[in-house]
């Protein structure tokens, strides 16, 4: 369906006289990961029939460059997002490969974003089937006190009965593992969120360790979580993120540079289980819940 829409948009783009400007892909750093992301975006654009030239540069070389009012800046990564949104406030922006929490405040109206993180509701929905097999129906989420975006999302979560939600707000000076350790004793599942203070480094290691020790399944947000010991992970692959970014560029191009109506876009995602962890926790993987790409 999406491809059909893309083809129609492309047809309209060809038939109409497009007046959009150039596309500038700006990398936060000149490293392999960002370059791979830019290359994937260009490849996706070509595959979808976009024949205009897209310029790739890094943040250092791009700063101070004069742009046409019709040009689109595609920022890859948080740093490029933060700096370019301030440097070119009247320019049209597309932020990609960032977390929702990295979006700059007070943005001008001409912007869109393709996020790496998944909507928190997807992870909660995924945990519902797991909690049915658990003695406890308490869902634990640990979030740092300063992550207002996530905390706001948590407030808007929709939880089916009888699932209970226990939110652990962790201060900057507190070891997350020690806080989580106490909560895991009665937890049915632990949802990992994109919060650097909680799920990073040794904290992540020890929380995964404690979860395994208490036989509490962890719902992760990346494929790497499966290797680290999570039961299931809900994530969008880098290719899908690049495709989603390319789709937004094409949409911008077909709209002749007009601002998009919907600003935040989530790439297509997959739900993947770690069979070994499932076997160790004696959890049956739900039917149709494995590796299927979803919109």
């Amino acid at each position, binding site marked *: 369906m999406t491809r059909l829409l893309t083809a129609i948009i492309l047809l309209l783009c060809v038939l109409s006289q497009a007046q959009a400007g150039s596309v500038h892909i700006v990398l936060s750093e000149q490293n392999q990961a960002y370059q791979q992301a830019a290359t994937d975006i260009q490849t996706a654009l070509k595959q979808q029939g976009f024949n205009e030239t897209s310029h790739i540069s890094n943040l250092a070389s791009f700063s101070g460059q004069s742009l046409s009012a019709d040009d689109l800046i595609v920022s890859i990564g948080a740093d490029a997002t933060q700096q370019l949104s301030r440097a070119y406030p009247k320019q049209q922006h597309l932020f990609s490969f960032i977390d929702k929490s990295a979006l700059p405040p007070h943005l001008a109206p001409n912007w869109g974003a393709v996020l790496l993180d998944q909507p928190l509701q997807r992870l909660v929905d995924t945990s519902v089937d797991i909690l049915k097999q658990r003695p406890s129906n308490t869902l634990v989420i640990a979030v740092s006190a300063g992550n207002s975006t996530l905390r706001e999302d948590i407030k808007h979560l929709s939880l089916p009965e009888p699932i209970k939600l226990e939110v652990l707000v962790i201060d900057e000076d507190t070891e997350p593992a020690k806080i989580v350790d106490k909560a895991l004793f009665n937890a049915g599942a632990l949802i990992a969120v994109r919060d650097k203070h909680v799920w990073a480094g040794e904290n992540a290691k020890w929380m995964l360790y404690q979860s395994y020790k208490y036989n509490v399944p962890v719902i992760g947000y990346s*494929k*790497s979580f499966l290797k680290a010991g999570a039961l299931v992970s809900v994530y969008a692959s880098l290719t899908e993120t690049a495709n989603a970014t390319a789709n937004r560029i094409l949409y911008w191009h077909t709209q002749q540079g007009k601002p998009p109506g919907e600003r935040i876009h989530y790439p297509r995602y997959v739900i993947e289980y770690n069979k070994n962890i499932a076997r160790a926790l004696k959890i049956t993987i739900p039917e149709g819940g494995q590796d299927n790409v979803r919109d």
Partner: protein
Amino acid sequence: MFATKLKTQLLLITILPLLLTISVVSLFILFDVLDGIETEVVKRGESIASQASVMSEFPLYTGDIDALQDIAELILRTHDLSYIRFIDSTGQLMIHENNASTTDTLREFSFPVYLQAPNLEDFSNLGSDTTQPAALGTIDFGFVDNSAEAQRFEAYTKVLSISMVALALGVIMVYLFSRRISDAIGNLVNTAEKLENKDFAARAEENGAGELLSFQRSFNAMISSLEQNDAELQEKISAATASLNYTVNQLSEKNVALAQQRQETIDLERSKAILEERERIMRDMHDGIGGQLVASLAMLEREQDSEMKQNIHSVLTECLNDLRLIIHSLSMQNSVLGSLLADFKYRTSRKLEQLGIELEWRVDMDADHLAIKPQTGLHLLRILQEAFTNILKHSGADLIRVRAEPMDDIFRIVIEDNGQFQPPAGALEAGHGIRNMRSRAAKLGGNLDIETIGSGGCRLILSFPCTASP
């Protein structure tokens, strides 16, 4: 070098590389096995450390001494360690557990325990934590390496046994395979030594194979050729030696002949000198004494006849005849017996006629061919003169018989008379005249016999060796 025998050299040439190869391979195998054993020990240590690290990571992180105590006791029992201790990141000892039963040599290990944070981001450069892993502490432990020592001993034994078996088999195979070659070459060497001692009949036994057999055959063919050449050379040497001996003999004979010729030449020169001296004496006697006698006779002829004249004339005539006889004897050259006897008869017969004595003269014809030397003729004439003088002086005979004839290889002259001479016993041997005759007969190489015959006659037999001239 230090081995002179061919078999020993072959064995050394083949065994030394074999020994070297086996030694190198054995060492490689041994080192590999020892490395494997050491690797096993290290792996065991790493496995224990890995297990202890996993188990103690969280207690080390949280500083849970009780948990570490439990872990230490569990690992100590499970892996039969001698000791184990946990040290935190500040170097402070947290737990130290000992196993008192082990007192042997320990293999000790020390492993750091790191806190390695997992990377939870797929897009790893976005918000990833790139800090180095933090050190939680150190795990030290030790265990007795009895099994490894046993394995090492077993490895030493196995490798040594395999090496010895391989070496023994190699030596046997080398001996078996090289024996044919060494025997063949040994035969060649022995044959060459015999050949050096000139034993060309020696042949190498053709017991080799392939090129060696061809070499033995060629070697024997060369010996045969050498033998043939040696035989031909010996023949040539023998022929040359015979020729040389013949030449030497010829030279010796030539030398003898030459010496003989030289002696003959010397004799001829001496004879010539004697002859010339004799002719000089003869001429002096003829011209001197002969001339004086002839002159005396001529002076006596002018004197008146008297008895004294007759006696002196007779004596002088005798002297002259005697001188002529001497000169004649001196001048005779290659005279024959017949002419000597005929001349004696001519000079004696007139005197016998005057005395009325009959002479029977019978000489064999062979006397005319019998050559005599002048000295021999003189001796013969003196013997004849003395015989006739004795007959005329003492016998009073009127008949004298003379026979000259050859008998076998001697010539015999017999003089007989019919006189009346009765000599006393021993008288025929005592006179100087007869002794002179015997002496002359001896110088002729013959002998002289005198005997009486009839009533007073005598017979004189002169025998001397002679050779008829051609």
